[in-house]
């Protein structure tokens, strides 16, 4: 058998699936956003759907809001995961248990977490009751669906931090003790050891964590619907809204926007994190 044919056949199960399933979905979404694959009328090339969408205030607001959720969630997850990864770098009594508990959110579905969360912070939930009992608040406060999307960010961070921790732990554990000892011996305190040794050496894992959390949070739907602000829509919400009214071309425009933002945002985040963690250098 020819070498190229053998290689192609071996790659087929993995690469083939990606090309067929993801490629076809991406192709249809892009084509539909330009007027093709019309389910209820004539198909043909058109920029009308994009033009109308750019004129909508809800579209630009949804872009801004989704980017905010995506970027903030990514950074919060990584910021919380880093100290834990460093703390758990060397095994100690109970470290395995702590590590397992920290990763528990990976096993709980986001919808369940969101429902639990709104129960806790509801008008008569335990947070309100506790703060009143402690005399901090006189009466109950409305915490649900806050306009700053703090609830969504808490849920995103809670759900994604263990994933970031998983990635960062591997990278941090791979850094030898002797490197950190050498840095300490040369006068670097704990923060400088992080800044000058750990962060630059774990930059790839940080990039991966930021990008994966960002893409997931950018397209968040469930947390937004249950715990998100009622006066703001995420791109996913907007897409589902259009799809609900059978406006597939508008929904496709949002889908392509999400994909574009996902790719561009990932690139920017990856470059930004490399630049910052490598002390102002990209190479």
């Amino acid at each position, binding site marked *: 058998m020819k070498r190229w044919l053998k290689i192609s056949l071996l790659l087929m199960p993995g690469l083939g699936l990606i090309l067929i399933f993801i490629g076809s979905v991406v192709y249809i979404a892009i084509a539909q956003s330009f007027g093709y694959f019309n389910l209820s009328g004539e198909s043909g090339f058109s920029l009308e759907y994009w033009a109308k969408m750019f004129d909508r205030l809800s579209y630009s607001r949804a872009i801004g809001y989704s980017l905010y959720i995506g970027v903030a969630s990514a950074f919060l997850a990584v910021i919380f995961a880093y100290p834990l990864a460093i703390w758990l770098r060397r095994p100690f009594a109970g470290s395995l248990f702590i590590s397992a508990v920290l990763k528990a959110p990976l096993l709980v579905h986001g919808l369940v977490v969101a429902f639990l969360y709104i129960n806790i912070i509801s008008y008569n939930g335990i947070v309100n009751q506790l703060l009143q009992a402690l005399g901090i608040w006189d009466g109950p406060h409305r915490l649900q669906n806050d306009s700053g999307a703090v609830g969504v960010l808490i849920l995103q961070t809670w759900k994604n931090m263990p994933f970031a921790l998983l990635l960062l732990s591997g990278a941090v554990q791979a850094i030898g003790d002797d490197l950190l000892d050498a840095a*300490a011996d040369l006068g670097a305190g704990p923060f400088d050891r992080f800044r*000058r040794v750990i962060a630059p050496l774990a930059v790839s894992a940080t990039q991966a964590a930021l990008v994966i959390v960002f893409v997931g949070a950018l397209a968040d739907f469930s947390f937004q619907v249950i715990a998100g602000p009622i006066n703001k829509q995420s791109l996913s919400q907007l897409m589902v809204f259009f799809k609900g009214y059978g406006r597939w071309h508008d929904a496709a425009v949002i889908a392509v926007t999400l994909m574009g933002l996902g790719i561009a945002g990932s690139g920017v985040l990856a470059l930004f994190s490399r630049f910052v963690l490598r002390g102002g250098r990209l190479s």
Partner: protein
Amino acid sequence: MNTVSVQNVSMRFGDFTAVDDVSFTVADGEFVTLLGPSGCGKTTLLNVVSGFLQPSAGKIEIGGVDVTFVPPEKRDTAMCFQSYALFPHLSVAENLQFGLKQKRLPAAERKQRLNDVAEKLDLVAQLEKLPNQLSGGQQQRVALGRALTMRPSVVLFDEPLSNLDAKLRESVRLEIRKIQADYNLAAIYVTHDQGEALAMSDRILIMRNGKIEQSGTPTEIYNFPQTSFVADFIGDANILDATIIGQESEDFWRVSTEIGELLVKSDTPPIAKRLKICWRPENAQFGAGEMNSIEAPITHRAFQGNYTDLFIEMNGVAQRVQWRRSHLEDITSLSMNIRPEDIIFLEAMT
């Protein structure tokens, strides 16, 4: 003046005592080697001096200041690691300047120190390279240079040559010694290689089970080992159980051993009636002599290049002899003698 003073230091990990009540000093410009087998506590002791470990008991002074509980980043020491521990994401120049930036030295001084060390260690052409683009010897020199740029009071070496091949090891150890002398640094060097210790040190501390078994200059340690462990660890030694029969004259003692009666010349009297004695294989005199003559069959031989190891057996006891001649195929038995001054009294038998 003593740069480093280690006073009654012990280091325990749970029930295990890695370093047990050790004391020693290192003077300005002195090169002291901690020598011993794996697990004897030498690296632990070095880590206590560098600050990576806090001792369970005892005190460490550097330059007269108590630094026992001072973290490594605040100690005036610099360490050369066994693995070199070069920062893989930084160029050679950045590695060399790591500590200088940490100290916030002005750029001009950093550059001057960098150039000075790079020139001395022949690293000028490598400054822009990453560590993984260097050979083992070059990496070792960068590790040494990184420590030297700090101009510490004391430089610590943790088996820095163990990853180099034999030829390179020899040249680098000369380089290390020369640079240490040029900068007049106090140095503590950890190794399990006795050749390295003998060639480089002003003083050797031989460690065993967390304690210092013997300390002295290389010649003292080699020529006058105090215990069978030291005699065997430094160089080759034939160790025998002996019983003192009597004193022949002021410095001469007659002993009975498994290979027969021997006459021993010693300035110091034996510490017990039953004790260990040793003699070095290279001190055997070939041919029968007036004293301590031995004749025995050769059981096997090993050609070593510039000498041949001959193994003889007497009364079931194997003894090793080194002969400078290489053509020994026709010899089946050996006639030799040991000079009384070449036999050393060791510790009492338990």
